[in-house]
């Protein structure tokens, strides 16, 4: 079913945690996103799908502060975050993973996650240089949190290994752990299943549900239709920077415009 801009879909999980209001993103003459309205409700798993080049990752970049939208507003948890610095957006509770894994490759898995945990740490230079008590406490807490998260995503037994030596699937999960360490209300996953085998995808589904069950909202980009249809509460479809459909998985699967623009072509063409 196609729907008009800004009208929330019928199945409401909660209040909107993230709202995109009339977002347009232009790069020179290229319009990557055109007048996009989107409301992600608290506690839902929301999928953003569409052909390559539809502007999905651009949406992520706008939400996380990488780009400042040409027009429109990004409202997160009641306040505007467009134009905020990237690390400030993260501190407010938006974390993400990347389409191409972008770990700190030569740091250990544990250190990677600890960088995320540091987002909320307050120790300054003096505290760190003098080894003051609160610094030690933060280090201890950060480490404990990181270990817990590595356990949570299932990479704990490799925590001392250098990130780039982990198998690909583990790298993806490590990236999720790193993002979770910043304690996000909203987690953006950019093609988390890319390059995973069926078993890994199965595990990933479970992991994403587990993340939602800890009270976080998940917005994901994915091309794997069985994964999307299996876990999403709602789906929005982008094509040429415009939302062509939004609704429940079953509605999206039968939507003629979506079939023409996207589902008709092989889902894996990336």
């Amino acid at each position, binding site marked *: 079913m196609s729907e008009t801009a800004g009208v929330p879909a019928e199945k409401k999980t909660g209040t909107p945690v993230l709202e995109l209001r009339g977002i347009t993103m232009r790069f020179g003459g290229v319009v990557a996103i055109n007048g996009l309205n989107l409301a992600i409700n608290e506690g839902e798993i929301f999928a953003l799908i569409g052909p390559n080049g539809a502007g999905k*990752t651009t949406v992520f970049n706008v939400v996380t502060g990488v780009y400042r939208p040409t027009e429109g507003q990004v409202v997160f948890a009641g306040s505007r975050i467009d134009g905020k610095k990237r690390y400030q957006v993260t501190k407010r509770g938006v*974390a993400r993973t*990347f389409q191409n894994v972008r770990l700190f490759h030569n740091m250990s898995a544990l250190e990677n996650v600890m960088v995320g945990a540091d987002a909320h740490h307050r120790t300054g*230079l003096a505290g760190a240089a003098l080894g003051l008590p609160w610094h030690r406490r933060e280090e201890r807490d950060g480490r404990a949190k990181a270990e817990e998260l590595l356990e949570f995503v299932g990479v704990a037994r490799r925590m001392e290994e250098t990130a780039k030596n982990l198998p690909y699937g583990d790298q993806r999960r490590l990236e999720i752990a790193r993002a979770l360490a910043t304690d996000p209300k909203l987690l953006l996953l950019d093609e988390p299943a890319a390059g995973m085998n069926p078993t890994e995808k199965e595990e990933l589904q479970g992991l994403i549900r587990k993340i939602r069950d800890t009270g976080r909202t998940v917005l994901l980009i994915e091309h794997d239709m069985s994964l999307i249809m299996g876990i999403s509460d709602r789906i929005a479809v982008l094509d040429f920077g415009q939302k062509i459909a939004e609704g429940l998985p079953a509605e999206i699967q039968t939507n003629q415009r979506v079939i023409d623009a996207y589902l008709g072509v092989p889902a894996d063409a990336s």
Partner: protein
Amino acid sequence: MNDTTNRNPLSRARDGYSSFFDTLRDRWATAPRWARWVVYLVLIVLAILLPADGVGSFMSPYTDWPTLLFFPIGGYILLAIGLNVVVGQAGLLDLGYVAFFAIGGYAMAIFGTKMHMSFWEILVVGVLLSAVSGIILGAPTLRLRGDYLAIVTLGFGEIVRIVANNTDYIGGPRGIGGIPHPPSLSEWTIPDNGFFDAIGIGGVQPLKYGALDGKPYYYLMLLLIVAAIIFAKRLENSRVGRAWASIREDEDAAELMGVPTFKFKLAAFAIGAAIGGAGGVVYASQSVSIIPTNFPFILSATILAAVVLGGSGNLPGVILGAFLVAWIPERIRGLQEYRVLVFGGVLVLLMIFRPEGLLPSRRRKAELAEGEGGMGGLGAEVGGPVTVAAGEVGE
């Protein structure tokens, strides 16, 4: 690259050396706390005994050994520790590091001769001044990345020297003379008896800063070096060090994980500058007079060479690198003008056989193996293995 079985003996020797130090490092990483303290203690005792005449007659047949230990050796080590924070840890290529050394030196000279402040007061003021100048340089320039940053810092180093050369108040090209020595803390003399004589430090007054004996200045420098090492090491193992490492690896990803990258880069600059400034203050306090040509660009390059040669990012490596870079040219003074040629040859050989440095940090070594940690990637170029232009995150 991993095929080590049928290569020439030289390569095998190289691999042997490599694995020897890897083992050593792993041992160290798992060593119990007390064992480390024993090692630290032994190293400090050795450092205290280093200026002994017996050591000097071999290490430095041409120059006064304690003075040589103070500067260039001690001075280079201190500067290399400071530059390592900037280059090795935060991954920012600074080609004008000598500027902070100069600012420290001129702080000592100006406050000492014109305002008659004492050395210890000036040490504090000089360090703060250098740190502030680091921030002043960093605030507008750290928005630049890579080669641009290197060029701007190169310019800054030159600007400081040229300004000193053209400012009459601080003596222009004639510099400043009559810089006071630090006030002596104590006339205490190490007993001149059998034991201390045997180990070569009998009769030394370690806290009396006169014109003749270089040893007290060396001890002063040693104190600063130890303080700088503790300081740098603590930062490295804290969230600050992690933030620097993440910036070096992938600045965009770091920022998206909540690291205020600009703030941390500025902090690295300020700390590097403060350590360089401390070196400058001590240097000037010993040398009585300073002139602008004490602070040439080549000193920035030499310290950078020490950092890279020793193993950027790894403190023991950097210290070793600085020691060699300072000591070799003095040791081969007997070759007269050929010594620079030989020194250059040694540097080239080292870079051929140990491109990652003598004692690289494991992380750095890995970065080099990926081919992104050479001079070009010396951190100036921040970006992950998938180097993405600024802002092009994810796509």
